[in-house]
């Protein structure tokens, strides 16, 4: 599966390994390895089928096709595709999980009121 093409999409290829804090204001596609934290508050993170992310994630939307280990805070939605393996707690407004996806963790569906109150 190839990464979606977009003018505002940063990509981390499958041979790339990054350790540290990642933050930005554009969508991010990770098909390599990232360890640390990812903060994309107004944008989306996609973990590709080869992606291996060990990080706390804060983003507007999160799509997982590969492996993600860490807590996820998504202000809009989280999508776990059928090949997703996620270990960590998920807090979001909406979530979709394809059959075959693996999740170990808590799912917390937050309404806008919850988010505003910082719950």
């Amino acid at each position: 599966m190839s990464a979606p093409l977009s003018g505002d999409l940063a990509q981390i290829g499958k041979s790339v390994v990054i350790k540290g804090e990642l933050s930005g204001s554009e969508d991010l596609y990770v098909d390599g390895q990232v360890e640390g934290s990812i903060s994309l508050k107004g944008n989306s993170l996609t973990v590709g089928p080869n992606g291996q992310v060990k990080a706390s994630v804060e983003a507007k939307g999160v799509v997982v096709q590969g492996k993600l280990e860490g807590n996820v805070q998504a202000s809009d939605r989280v999508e776990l595709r059928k090949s997703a393996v996620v270990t960590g707690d998920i807090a979001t407004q909406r979530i979709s999980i394809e059959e075959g996806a693996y999740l170990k963790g808590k799912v917390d569906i937050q309404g806008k009121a919850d988010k505003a109150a910082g719950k």
Partner: protein
Amino acid sequence: MASVSQNFMKLFRGSSSGSQTAATSSSQKLTRRSSGLGELTRLWESDAQLCVLDLGSTSAANIRYFTERGHRIYSEDLLVASTEPGLVTKDEEGKVILDSRKFLADNLVYPAAHFDVVLCWNLPDYLDESLVRPVMGRLWSVLKPQGMLLAFFHTKDAGPDSPCYRFHIVEKDVLEMQKIVLKRESRRGPTGAIHTAISDGFRLQRVFNNRHIETLFRDFASIKFFLARDNVREVLVVR
């Protein structure tokens, strides 16, 4: 390797028949009424926010069911977790077992008295012998006092090839059952023959009789049995 569980199965080996045989199609989804789930419905419909632990395969339907009602749900697939190759060890007699301490160091790691409800589904019937009692002990500790646990057990009429299902909550007392088909060869299980020798799913490890079930849950305050028509006993226990 002839394990205790395999020998135990020989005592109870029966033929798969009736509804069980009809359920073996991998793509087929069955529905069944669940009296145990129906009993729990009173909890779901209450105003209190519950903390629920689902130990079956990750189910979007179950997550939606509980989150729509304002409850918190945790998902942890212990059967898949038990196939981790690093768990394989040997006991004092040299028999291959799974390391329950390591398993519990990596799984079911929650504060004491954290959950109102644990949905065990058919986990005890398919979990490796060396993990069953330690896991039940841990589940007792993470349940709140008066917390409830729902588990399904095959009766002696179930054969060893009874398919392992994932369970999706459809209505208050209706479950959709879907045969688990393992995706990867690596999920066959660390001990090979003991756990998941068949290539596409988990294998029934044993059949508990009523006394075994009572012993398994002896630390719990009460136990209630529901006998279903599909060779399954539902058990609802209260801590």
